[in-house]
């Protein structure tokens, strides 16, 4: 097994510096601190763009703490490039897990504020340590590592291709969402009935919700012990719309009374509520036995 990095390819390019810190790391530290500083804003300020909130939140949970912690603990050039990225993401997420376990045992628990204190706090403290340790590092020339030639940036063709990829992905996600939101089963309606237990007089709460493909009219009939009590014409209920009513039951009904509500689709009926034959199969049916 190898004991050095001779075969490896990610020799860091530490050439320019800001205040004695390699430029890329100075930028990284500054960015991580900015994300950490944005943490309290996310929690305390309303009206922030939702997309920005998600992006900042993700960076605070899955990148910034690990980046600064790894930079504080591994300030040298041995860890760079992909390895630093993996270690940053991995340490961030593991810190979130272990920090979350810790927060669970505190009186504050897992609230947004406690998450901000934990994640922003770790990021900023580690950034301070990293800053101190980075400034004390010898330059690449001093450690005898030949700096890597600057990596070529993406050419115009590559940028165009990546833009095309982003466009295709955006279109794909949009298509998938539209496709998934399109109903593939027939529409339906809900009917419910609940006793109004807390009320002074006995009664029931009735509700109809339409999830049909188009506006629908219904006929709803309420019977007690088989005798009609009342009926409603629920007209033109639009898809997603709900109709509700609370009905008092006739005084003096027995303890074993059967309260039954039947819902009919108006278009399927040839008669009015009062003349709906018992043999007519209701569209929906709910029953309370007192």
């Amino acid at each position: 097994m190898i004991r050095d990095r001779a075969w490896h390819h990610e020799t860091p390019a530490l050439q320019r510096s800001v205040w004695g810190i390699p430029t890329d790391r100075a930028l990284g530290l500054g960015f991580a601190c900015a994300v950490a500083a944005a943490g309290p804003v996310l929690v305390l300020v309303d009206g922030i763009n939702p997309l920005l909130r998600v992006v900042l939140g993700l960076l605070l949970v899955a990148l910034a703490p690990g980046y600064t912690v790894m930079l504080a603990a591994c300030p040298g050039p041995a860890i760079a490039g992909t390895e630093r990225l993996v270690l940053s993401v991995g340490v961030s997420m593991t810190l979130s897990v272990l920090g979350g376990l810790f927060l669970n045992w505190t009186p504050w628990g897992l609230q947004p504020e406690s998450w901000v204190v934990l994640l922003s706090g770790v990021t900023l403290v580690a950034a301070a340590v990293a800053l101190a340790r980075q400034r004390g590092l010898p330059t690449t020339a001093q450690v005898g590592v030949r700096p890597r030639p600057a990596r070529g940036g993406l050419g115009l063709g590559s940028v165009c291709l990546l833009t095309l990829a982003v466009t295709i992905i955006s279109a794909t996600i949009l298509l998938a969402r539209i496709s998934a939101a399109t109903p593939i089963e027939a529409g339906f309606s809900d009917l419910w009935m609940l006793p109004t237990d807390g009320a002074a007089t006995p009664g029931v709460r009735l509700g109809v919700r339409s999830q049909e493909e188009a506006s629908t009219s219904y006929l709803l009939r309420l019977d007690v012990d088989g005798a009609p009590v009342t009926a409603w014409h629920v007209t033109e209920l639009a898809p997603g719309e709900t109709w509700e009513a609370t009905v008092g039951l006739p005084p003096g009904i027995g303890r074993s009374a059967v309260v039954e509500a039947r819902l009919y689709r108006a278009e399927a009926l040839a008669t009015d509520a009062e003349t709906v034959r018992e043999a007519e199969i209701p569209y929906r049916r709910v029953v309370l036995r007192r």
Partner: protein
Amino acid sequence: MSHAFRAFPGNRRGAADALSLPDDFGLGQPPSDRPTHVAAPTPVVRAFPHADGWGLLPAFTVLATVGSLLVTVGYHGGRIEAPWADLAFWSGVLVMFLPIAWRLALARTPRRERIGLVCVVGLGLYLNKVLHSPLAFTFHDEFAHWRTTNDILRTDHLFSPNPIIAVSALYPSLHLITGALADLSGSTIFLAGVLILAAARLMLVLALFLFFDLAARSPRVAGLATLLYMTNPNFAYFDAQYAYESIALPFAVFAMFAVVRQQTLKDGRLGVTMAVLLAVMAVVPSHHLTTYALVGFLVLWMVVALFLRIAPARWTGIAPDPSEQSGAVADRRDPGGVVLLALVTGLAWLIYIAGLTVGYLTPVVWSGLSELFRLIAGEVIARELFRDYSGQLAPIWERAAGFSSVILILLALPFGLLRVWQRYRTDSLALALAVGALAYPASLGLRLTHFGAEASNRTSEFLFVPIAFTLAVAAVELWLKRPDNWVRISLFVVWATLIFTGGIIVGVPRWGRMPGPYLVSADTRSIEPKGMTAAEWMRTFIGSGSTIATDRINGLLMGSYGGQMTVRYSHDGTGMAWAFFTPTLGPTEIELLRSGQVRYVVVDRRLGTRLPIVGVYFEMGEPDTYSRTVPMDPAALAKFDDVDGVQRLYDNGDIVIYDIGALTVDP
């Protein structure tokens, strides 16, 4: 002179070994049939600056996105039951995988491009799963983990009881991270979960590449091994769902990478050692099986390292004294301290927090093993592969691809094992990976059983780490040794593509990977508006936390979006399902429901129309589990109507909710 300084004249190469070819750009470990001691650390001279280039990555990224678009068109075709749906789906999958497999097989592909390419495939396959259900979670386990996350957000604390998968709440890593993001960003659990798992998938793929790179010392092997890992049956869907294993696996691979990397570092060990500790401690509260798999592999590695220390030199070619230049030097490191840490934290978590895990896992493993023994004894017949429990048989080409994937792995594995022994026999890590790959054939037997099939399937995401490494070594060092031989590369790509497509077919049956109309007891295909509406109605009008008895699918919906406590078994272990199968609601059924203090019963009339695709309507242990030949009796489902004391509260045509509290709940 170290090979690290060797420069190649462009991309042309001579008879040198594949490992030292431009794939490594002159920076590779000196290849040799006889392992040698590695030279002291030396500064790197970069003979090939273009090795850092992105190469054709942007073009292959565009191809992969076209693949995702085709897959999405296939999903839409599935929803409208179009005959071209499968063609579009598989075209998309192949457009995503095949060109990148070809590019990774080439010797001249730069390392940086290889890293980019494996990320594109890994994230592309993850995106394919997200595009399957882009509005909400619809896979079976996702509802359980949604519930755990929701409980954390609701209570600000961990370990609320989870009625869907009880142990879900006891392994809260995924839920903690998702909850943190949801708390900070104000996003839904769905969006937060999708983003966290995307970050985890990126970490998994990169850590896997770096781990293989460290183990094989070849970016070419690393790239192909990472690609081959993605052919495991669970990579495309199961390990992309919102479930605890989807975060545990990246943590475990990250831990393994950090352990190996920490051993190769001189400077900066403190940071990577800390990463090792954090990773191992994060795996333990993430997922039970992943913890045991990680501990198992670390123990295996330790045993192999011990073997290398005590084995006679003539077996391994290792010189007894490292200073002796005539022989190779054993890799004397092992992950001893990490094993101890993983064991102690794993046991402590099991004992003090997650004691339920034993009762959760034992029946699954025991049922599978006992069925396997009975199968060997000829007492039972084997499960028919590629046929679901409603009787539908997969198309012949899917069956052929599924069998081919297993056979092709089994055929190539011996060559990989031989090559690992020849090349890496002084390296305890590489040898441990090869030994781990031997478990694959043994795991296949359980696939023939009804109860053990899932357990067997669930081993693949762990076993494919060593399998992928071993196969990649075989591919690079034997089959693709002659650089850029088009015929050989093409055959390799076909071989890898067959394993990949077979893996998807074995991992998820067609009804599971393609969206479409409602099917009875078919997990993701049974999630539709009626069930979701009923669950939301329950939460809105009845409130959360009521005890309910219902079938498998409505149990998921009621336990998650409904916020209810689904009761599945009585105190003596009898399944509530038995109360649903009898034609009448008699004293026995009432007593069973009463023993579970069930207040509400949710009945889905559609259960009486078709056989259950997954083999059960409710739970394992219900009447005719995995052996049903006729659908449930509709009269049995209608028996709660017109019973004194039973209130029929809600009706949406297929789903009816009854209040049976007067019969079952003590006043």
